[in-house]
């Protein structure tokens, strides 16, 4: 089937808001090439469970594409139309299962050596869209904080090497009460600039007590879901004929209820947007099910990419020591042996990625970033007011550092 054959009734299985949005733009979608539309539907099918920033981005994208006259549409999507697709792809039910179609399209592009062409078409489209519909600047400059090295007594190797050229390196930070000061600082921001999913606290271990104004995700809180997911994978793998593709499809279809997550109470009303986000962290992220440092990095990446928060504090906790993959995947231990130094090195690189991902968002030139070696005197701050590539040996606590950074 081609996009030109699309009919409203084919979207009956879509969640209500997604269905409404797609049908509203059906006339536009009918004019777009098959190599493009399923990728868009893959995003739109989850519209009901997306963060506000994503929803707004989809609406703006559809609004602009829908406003283009036919000749401009041809121009914008010509490179996608030139992608050769197989009969098998054309006959796939991509309206019902756009994610699976995209998986198969990806394999097709690699094997037919069209990946570079598709990549260029995609990047050109994204650039054009950004120029035509510039992303909105945040109401307040973004702040990212990474806290690394929890539990490490001492470490004599240099830290923050990838970030030092971009900011000021502090060597005499007073560590007392440091995490509390940071959590209070971000709570103040959340109260001053309230917005749904705009202020986040991600913990790779057990979260500290924090303001309810923060959106919180933690490795510890998801332990029952991680166990349930690994059991589900193991059960499925024992079925005859199960392979990587079938497993990926199964993971993509996993919902919070499948992992025992959807238990609402009066104190904790159900937040399906966040629950679906958490499920995707576990089903789409590689290593997020077994290593807490990887979970925290991936959660931060996805929160930045999808929710575009104004504030994000990520605290890395010790991950379990490496064991054979099959053992890591099948045995969840209540008290696994941890790798403190390995976790610090993981966190140091992940902090760099947190900064890189924050800088991809609108308003990057005004954004600030702080990374602290938890319990120790080393930190690094990046921001418009921070001199680049410098070092400071002045004593300061984390509250002061936060104030200087922002």
């Amino acid at each position, binding site marked *: 089937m081609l996009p030109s054959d699309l009919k409203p009734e084919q979207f009956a299985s879509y969640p209500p808001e997604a269905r409404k949005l797609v049908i509203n733009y059906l006339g536009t979608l009918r004019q777009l090439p098959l190599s493009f539309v399923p*990728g868009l539907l*893959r*995003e739109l099918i989850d519209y009901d469970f997306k963060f506000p920033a994503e929803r707004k981005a989809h609406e703006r994208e559809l609004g602009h594409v829908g406003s283009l006259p036919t000749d401009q549409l041809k121009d914008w999507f010509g490179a996608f139309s030139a992608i050769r697709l197989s009969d098998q792809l054309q006959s796939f039910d991509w309206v019902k299962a756009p994610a699976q179609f995209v998986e198969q*399209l*990806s394999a097709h*592009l*690699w*094997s037919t*050596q069209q*990946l*570079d*062409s*598709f*990549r*260029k078409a*995609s*990047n*050109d*489209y*994204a*650039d054009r869209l*950004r120029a035509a519909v510039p992303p909105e600047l945040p109401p307040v400059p973004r702040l990212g904080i990474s806290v690394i090295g929890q539990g490490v007594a001492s470490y004599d190797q240099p830290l923050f*090497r990838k970030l030092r050229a971009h900011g000021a390196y502090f060597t005499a930070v007073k560590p007392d009460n440091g995490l509390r000061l940071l959590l209070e600082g971000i709570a103040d921001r959340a109260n001053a600039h309230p917005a749904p999913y705009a202020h986040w606290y991600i913990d790779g271990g057990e979260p500290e007590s924090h303001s309810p104004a923060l959106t919180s995700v933690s490795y510890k809180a998801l332990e029952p879901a991680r166990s349930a997911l690994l059991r589900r994978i193991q059960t499925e*793998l024992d079925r005859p004929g*199960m*392979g*990587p593709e079938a*497993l990926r499809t199964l993971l993509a279809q996993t919902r919070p209820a499948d992992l025992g997550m959807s238990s609402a109470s009066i104190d904790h009303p159900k937040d399906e947007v966040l629950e679906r986000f958490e499920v995707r962290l576990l089903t789409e*992220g*590689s*290593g997020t099910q*077994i*290593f807490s*440092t*990887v979970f925290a*990095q*991936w959660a931060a*990446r996805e929160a930045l*990419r999808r929710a575009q928060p104004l504030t994000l504090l990520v605290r890395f906790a010790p*991950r379990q020591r*490496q*064991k*054979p*993959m*099959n*053992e890591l*995947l099948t045995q969840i231990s209540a008290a696994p042996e941890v*790798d403190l*130094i*390995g*976790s610090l*090195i*993981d966190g*140091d*690189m992940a902090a*760099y*990625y947190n900064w*890189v*991902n924050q800088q*991809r968002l609108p308003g990057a030139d005004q954004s600030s970033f702080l990374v602290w070696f938890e319990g120790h005197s080393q930190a690094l701050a990046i921001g418009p007011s921070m001199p680049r590539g410098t070092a400071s040996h002045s004593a300061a606590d984390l509250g002061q550092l936060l104030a200087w950074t922002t």
Partner: protein
Amino acid sequence: MIAQNRRGKATFRASASDVEGASRFLARTRRDFLRTAAGMTLGSTLLRSPWARAATTSRKRKVVVVTFGGGARDQETFAPEGQENIPHLMRELIPQSSFFTQVVNRGILGHYVATASLATGVYETINNFASLPPQSPTVFEYYRKDLKRPSSDAWVVAPSNGFNRIGESSHRSYGYGLGARVILPKHLLTAATSGHGADYQHLLRDNYETPYYAPELSGSEFELQQLEMILKLSVDDFKAHAQTLSSPDELSLYIVRQLMRQVAPSLLWITLHDIDIAHAGAYSLYIEGIRRTDRLCSDLWKTIQSEPEYAGKTTLFILPDFGRDSDDDAGGNGFQHHRTGDALSRTTWMLVAGPGIREGAVFDRPMESTDLVPTLGSMLGFSASLARGKPVSELL
């Protein structure tokens, strides 16, 4: 991943021509790093070595190819900040080698299919995660058929179950009975411990690309009983030595040494994969993998120089099958994967050492992964007639 690319907000945008430009930039950067750190010269300005010509005529010439299933990026290896992770390559191997800075893989960036492409000289399109033979003839089949060599003369030591078909293609003019013998050391160890290898679990890590799934074995893999018959290694000795090792690649190298001593094949292909732990996302484990691989490459070179059957007549090729994603591509997640198809993930390097190979030379002209097999053909005297690449003239 495609959707992520399409919807990503990358600051680095690469078109097809940009990819070529980025590959050239990577090559120049590698050359500059090497010239600074190891005192290498720019090979393209030098004359061809008469030793190379003499060596190609030797009937006793042997070749050992080492591929990494899971490349490492420059910033963790050849760049100034990465050189601490590869002391053996930098100080021992590279000064004795010809080094090619720009080896581009234009095929599918999955480890099994990319290794199959390296071994056939054709960009293979087989399913990366299925137990399938390459579609085009492998280097082992060309070698054995053209030179009438016995099966004992071409061997593959490979990391995971998925590689058990790598030695022999499904091509109708080659294929059955003409390929290499394949050893999967982890499979052997599993068999040796009768599936109760609690003490050996650290050596039995399988495919990091699909950590949940290992394909069923099929084909003619090396059986346990042949351990004693061919490698002259009792199951008890094998198990006892395995307990002293710390990773799957160390186990592979142990088997390689035994194979070199007992069988001395003239064409030996080893695929390492410890670096590919990067897929789990833990940076410290990826760095550990690079450091271990660096040490194992040095150990292998020392073994080649000390084994009478190999010393003075063996050419060693070391090359990753491809690279890993750049930090700059919003579609990827940095070192963790190789999914974006960006220049960094497609561009890698090759190191060649041995008699007749110019020492301390750097070549930064572009070559492709598919050039390996025709080069081996020119060196060993067989025709890789269906391979798509071209022989690397600087080695001939």
